[in-house]
């Protein structure tokens, strides 16, 4: 049975404490989010949360285990520092989607603005539209899948994360290069699409980008690349 929390009548604290203290396996519906910030943050339980509308900053921040669906668009920092679980955005995402997140999967059905996946540390992010500039900046680990186009300076100063893009890449950032798409990478992409329940994407045509690893240790001859 679905439990409803209405932000028109409840405070943010009341909504979040209900979710944070929820027994496992409960379905929650958040009504009237009205662009409020920090909704459904710090969850640490296997619950399903549907948010009926658009939200502000940091929705699903530091999520563990919970499955969160936003039936709208999200402000900056959706699923920031997520550890596990799922955050699915039916609309578009603002800046820093999935910033520094360690695990789980973030699915953005629309577009994602600049710095999507910044300093990501193990999360899988699938953007079904386009991403803005500096996406995967300093990305450390995990996979960023872009089913549209990427803006300027993609993967700038990237570490060991993978970026997969099917559309155009406006430009690559420092130390980011195209890498061979091996069979293992195609299998990885297939698994990610299956996990995200995306059945209309083919893995053929995706290109892979990652670190050239030439800036990992300082060398004065590379100074002009920074």
């Amino acid at each position, binding site marked *: 049975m679905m439990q409803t929390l209405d932000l028109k009548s409840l405070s943010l604290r009341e909504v979040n404490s209900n979710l944070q203290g929820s027994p496992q396996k409960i379905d929650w519906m958040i009504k009237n989010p009205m662009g409020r910030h*920090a909704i459904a943050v710090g969850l640490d339980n296997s619950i399903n949360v549907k948010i009926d509308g658009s939200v502000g*900053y940091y929705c699903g921040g530091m999520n563990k285990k919970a499955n969160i669906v936003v039936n709208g668009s999200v402000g900056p920092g959706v699923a920031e520092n997520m550890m596990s679980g799922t955050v699915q955005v039916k609309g578009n995402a603002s800046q820093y989607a999935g910033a520094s997140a360690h695990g789980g999967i973030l699915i953005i059905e629309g577009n994602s603005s600049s710095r999507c996946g910044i300093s990501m540390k193990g999360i899988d992010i699938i953007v079904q539209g386009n991403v803005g500039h500096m996406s995967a900046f300093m990305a450390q680990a995990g996979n960023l899948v872009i089913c549209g186009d990427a803006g300027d300076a993609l993967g700038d100063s990237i570490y060991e994360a993978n970026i997969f893009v099917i559309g155009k890449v406006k430009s690559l950032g420092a130390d980011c290069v195209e890498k061979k798409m091996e069979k293992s990478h195609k299998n990885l992409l297939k698994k990610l699409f299956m996990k995200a329940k995306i059945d209309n994407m083919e893995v053929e045509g995706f290109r892979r980008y990652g670190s050239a690893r030439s800036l990992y240790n300082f060398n004065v001859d590379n100074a002009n690349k920074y």
Partner: protein
Amino acid sequence: MSQGPKTHPRQSTLFDPYTNSEIRRAAETGIYDIRGGGSKRRLPHFDDLLFLGASISRYPLEGYRESCNTKVTIGDKNAKNPLYLDIPITIAGMSFGALSGPAKEAIGRGATIAGTSTTTGDGGMTKEERGHSKKLIYQLLPSRYGMNPDDLRKADAIEVVVGQGAKPGGGGMLLGQKINDRVAEMRTLPKGIDQRSPCRHPDWTGPDDMEIKILELREITGWKVPIIVKVAAARPFYDIALAVKAGADAIVIDGMQGGTAATQEVFIENVGIPTLACIRPAVKALQELGVHKKVQLIVSGGIRNGADVAKAMALGADAVSIGTAALIALGDNDPKYEEQYQKLGTTHGAYDDWHEGNDPAGITTQNPTLMKKLDPIEGGRRLSNFLKVMTMEAQTIARACGKNDLRNLEPEDLCALTVEASAMAGVPLAGTSWIPGKQ
């Protein structure tokens, strides 16, 4: 050639031996000098202030009989569980990675015995650190290395780090030599790379964003623990006002003497302002917003003894924080390691290549052999002794000024020895009623 009178060889004060050696080093290596610690240059500091003490117009308290409170509460504005400290001296954030595991344990032990808090750093929270620190502040840094909600909820307070006095506007640095398997795993980085942390947070920029970030942290931790904001001393009046506006429960302001594990020498010595210069503008911001002593001000950067503690508090701080002094208490730069310092091309008191991981004292290293040199139990005892001595020294001064609480010390208890210190600290030049810039 004429054998007429010759002048004495005259060395340049501009191109002094250190400057020349740095030019040669840069020419040789092609990289800027990286080192640990804070500013080493002569700066106006607490040494340029004196306490007036009691006389006919003020009466003192008995040194060993009348009490002088040292307890301080941090973050009681919003948090259900504020930080109650027995002494107003906290331990600043220093990372596991920059410091060895035993060094972090020693700091936790020492701080706990003395009744104060210690702070994580750019690299996450270790079990040893949480286990040995009764009161632990967890830093939220731009890199977010090792940041996770479980540790966040284990913390007694959260410190949002905006800047560090040694490098306002700069990020952390940990070079490959110190990125061993455990450090690499905690930071999700390949082993042996040069790690240069970002200087900005990945998911917010200005003060309006920071206010929302603080809201998120409160929601994740159920409004239980204080949220502290740490800023580098740059534009203290505005930075402190904006931190208050963003909802900080307490603020750390770190002057340019504040140490770092590693950054560029040019950064340490040329960016930011001295600790002495940042306190009064910070206090003015708090006073104008009506929150002085309600949003606590913690001052760091070159605090070395009880006199520095008392002077910072007299200028309006609620507490201070130490880093470099704590490392020295543990054994950093101790003359007993002189032979090893000489082998590294330096001498005790000057050793600052902490990033290279060869610390003879076993503190700023990840080398398993070197780190054994520090016994965490003995180190903890030394640190607690030092903290207790600093506290007693500050109490001695406070009683001499007639104060039964360290927080009752006030600018009127002070005078300055130099015009510069007088202007920066806003206290009169000794023997006068003159403060430069004031009527």
